């Protein structure tokens, strides 16, 4: 069901988001990999497949190591965007597979929502793509990253 953005309510110091290829913003209360484990169908995955990746790496389920990395990279390739705001230093990291006109529009809407939620337009964001990393601000993202 389509929902408008809720603006009210306290903002935690550490925030995590999954943004779907269609631009849906998912605010997480846990780790990114937990959401993949808890709602694999949302990501077009099967729980047995996810477990098999962890088993192949010999890692405990939900741990943040190589299996998680493999799964996250696969999701980025499918168009999912991961965003995390760290407290110290106060900075964002956004993982997006590639920057094209579609992902830039999705990111612009995401950044506008974050600004509206009370984050500074001048918050630093480390943009991590498969082509490399760059430092930008939320405002620059909301304007389409020129």
């Amino acid at each position, binding site marked *: 069901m*389509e*929902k*408008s*953005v*809720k*603006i009210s309510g306290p903002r935690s110091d550490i925030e995590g988001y*999954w943004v779907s290829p*269609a*631009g*849906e*913003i*998912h*605010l*997480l*209360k*846990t780790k990114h990999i937990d*959401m993949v484990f808890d*709602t694999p169908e949302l990501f077009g995955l099967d729980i047995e497949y996810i477990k098999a990746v962890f088993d192949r790496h010999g890692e405990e389920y939900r741990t943040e190591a190589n299996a998680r990395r493999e799964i996250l990279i696969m999701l980025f390739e499918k168009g999912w965007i991961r965003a995390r705001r760290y407290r110290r230093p106060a900075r964002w990291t956004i993982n997006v597979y590639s920057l094209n*006109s*579609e992902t*830039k*529009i999705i990111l*612009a*809407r995401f950044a*506008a*929502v974050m*600004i*509206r939620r009370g984050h500074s*337009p001048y918050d630093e964001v480390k943009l991590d793509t498969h082509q490399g990393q760059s430092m930008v601000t939320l*405002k620059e993202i*909301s*304007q*389409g*990253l*020129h």
Partner: protein
Amino acid sequence: MELRKYKNITRFLVTLFNFFKENEIGSSLQPVEDYDILLERILESKFLNFHYNPGIYSIDFRLRKKVEKSEVYMLIFGEGSSDKSAHLLIDLGERDLTSFISFSIHGEKHPPFLMDFVDEHGKLKIEYTDGSAEEQNPDGFDIMTFEEFALFLAEYNRQKNIKWIEVD
């Protein structure tokens, strides 16, 4: 220079705001209390800069009357039969911060207000982020006419929203 002196930007925004009112397109973020007042605040502002990236066009300006608290509006609209959508983001910065509007559009043609940036030789000067620049004939640049823009809006006349989901 006042934003309203750019006649194509003004016509573009007036067309867009009328479209919002006629089709009851609301903001997905802060609600717009009065479209006419908001438009007037933008048009009376001082134009600062224009830049674009394929798909997103942004105009920086400075409000004539400063605000103490920033205002952010996002109006998303699109086709009823698909997920295709466009948006107008309006960010009015507090105190001395600059404000901007940015318009996103999927498609190969540029919005009609780009004609305001055609120089006296009939060329559009494009400055790239690497410092290089070139001039292009606007005919080869594929800019929508206002008639084409009206047709585009007629197809994109449905309210769209940002989908926001809190995960337990």
